[in-house]
């Protein structure tokens, strides 16, 4: 049964994310360890907040949309 992407509400066949946002989420997860190494201490929440709030970070729009969604989820 068709469902909707939790980020952009587009119709998807299965899962939570559409293809684009799924790739963006994987990239966010993959890069987290690099950020932890770079700053020594960094939590997942701090990482997401940086992605959302720091305008100097050249994060892609779709990755940012996922970060906003995950950030809101963690605050709930």
């Amino acid at each position, binding site marked *: 049964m068709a469902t909707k992407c939790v980020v952009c509400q587009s*119709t998807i066949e299965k899962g939570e994310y559409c293809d684009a946002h799924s790739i963006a989420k994987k990239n966010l997860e993959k890069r987290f360890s690099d950020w932890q190494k*770079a*700053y020594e201490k960094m939590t997942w929440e701090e990482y997401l907040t940086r992605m959302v709030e720091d305008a100097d970070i050249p994060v*892609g729009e779709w990755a940012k949309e996922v970060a906003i969604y995950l950030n809101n989820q963690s605050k709930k």
Partner: protein
Amino acid sequence: MTDYLCISEKPTAAKRIATALDERGKPKKLPVPRNFGRIPVWESMRNGDRIVTIPALGHLYSTVEDSAGGWHYPAFSYKWTPSYLANEKNKTRPFILAFKKFGKEISNVIIATDYDLEGEVIGATIAKFACGQDLANVKRMRFSTLTKSDIVNSFEHRDPSVNINLVNAGFARHEIDWLFGINLTRALTLSIKHATGRYKLITTGRVQGPTLRFVADRERDIQTFVPIPRWAIDARIDLDGDEIFIEYNKKFLPSLKEAEKVVAETTGRDGIVKEIGPRKITQKPPAPFNLGTLQSEAYRHFGYTPSRTLRAAETLYLNALISYPRTSSQQFTAAINHRDILTQLTKCDPYRVRANKLLAKSKLHPTFGKKKDPAHPPIHPTGKKLAGNLRNEERNLYNLIVCRYLAIFGEPSIKNGLRLDLKINDHIFYLRGMKVLKKGWLEFYTPFGRVDEVELPDLAVGDVVKLAYINHKQSYTQPPARYNPNSLLKKMEEQELGTKATRASTIDILYSRGYIEDESINATDLGFAVIDTLQKNSPDIISIELTRKLQREIEDIQAGKKSREAVLMESIVQLKKILEKFHKKEKIIGVTLEEQVQNLKQRQRILGKCPVCKQGELIITRSIRTKKRFVGCTGFYKKLCDWSAPIPQKGYAVPAKKNCKHCGFPMLTIRRKGKKPFTICPNWISCPGTPDEVIDNYRNNKAGALDAIVEEET
């Protein structure tokens, strides 16, 4: 006396050919019946023979469906027919009438179109369908420039028949492109129609689909990009009061801790010059221009898109100023007399000194690249004096071509790359310098081959220098760059998609279909929708491998290794498989595409956040009562905001994706056919950036005044 009928590709080329072949250089313009319009039919006299030259206007014949089954797929049955019958807007009927009339009177037919796949098809279709000739009896003139000597020589030594392999390859390419284009476009369009009942034309083609995929893939990489932080060391030394930048031996450090350590260990310390190392760099002259390298260099120096460069190069060719530009060759044959061309160039002021310098050499050895093209030499000037009627871009391009041509005879340039190593408490920093020891070919490539020299400060090994400033600077890894028309063309070339003659127009088609936008190329939502849907449901349509395979098979026909029929049959089998798979998933493809198209339509109306209520969004909409177009806030529907403003009624209005620098309102762009796009602020009535006369005109004449302003400024 023998009569010849000479088929030329364009009116300009026909006049040049007729003039060159006429002994007095004054061909006669023959009277033609009134229904031929203003078709110039030229008569030249040569050694008692009469040569009638008639121009075509590109392709006079094209492929159309040979069945009356309506708009369906698959459609494998086709025929060649006059282009004016295939397309009402095509005005080529008088040309065909002229060829038919003279084709009946003259049996000796010579094709004098450009010698390539397209030229061969243009000439062969006219000779076969309009003049009723057997192609085995049709002669061929082959030339690479439109100079008198080249034209006369190609007439005197014309080939006894056309290159039948080239003709077959050209026919096959047209037919395969037609088969793929018509079937895939119909399949995509009908998928929406069958799934939702709506009609939306979605086009694609054999080369178009894979090219769009490059852009969409790159855009996906950019939009899903997550950067990694990194730190650079920003350091300067003090030399007699001047601060000079020095580079740390690692361009970036991966952690803040490491960066802080370098700063802590070097702050307040002096540096010692450890080593000064010169390094000689020899740079060979560049290869001569082929179309790809010319387009690339013209983009680099002037910002011209590949299609603009091709258009300008074709004008230069038709003016006999340069050789045939649609070539991939980077190797000259012995047939080109470089000494003659250089001698002609000495008559042009800007090139006199450089050409004379080269002529003083006992032997002229042009450089060469890897690519060969047996049909045409690399792009080079003919030596003919520049005419006064050229546009700026044509002049610029001509200058680039001449300078490159001069440079290929130059000596290698020799540069001295210097590096000075500084040690500051176990950390190595360095300074770089560059000095040109011998200009070589760079001298001939001026102003395009400039090298910026950087002098090193006067320091010796063991000298102590004072560190004036050091700190770390954070940056991030960057997403890959978007394609521009030039890099996309290079990518197509690298992946063997399309031909040198068609790549630039494929990119233009993607723009005109609304699949890509902007100079820094970005896939539109529609472009993404098409690629995403096809990638999931019918990946063969956008398969680079399939397109490349078909391209190679066309080349095999040209080389005589395969027959046109065999390649066509193979293509139809491939296409049939693709369409069968597509048909099974037609409904899901249609629904997904329609959803994406609707999203796109919605997004194309939204300008951005409303600066008045800061809650709604400004959208381009129409009044239900007057049907007039205006910009309003979506907050109106929730009774939050009633801001609205009139906008020009003519043209296509789209979000400009930028805000007004005077009032901060998101702007919109008006596009009109044949005019430059114009960006306006929707808040123009209150915006401080709007000139007073616009407001005055508006008060007198309402929205028409705004239309007038747009008209004036475009």
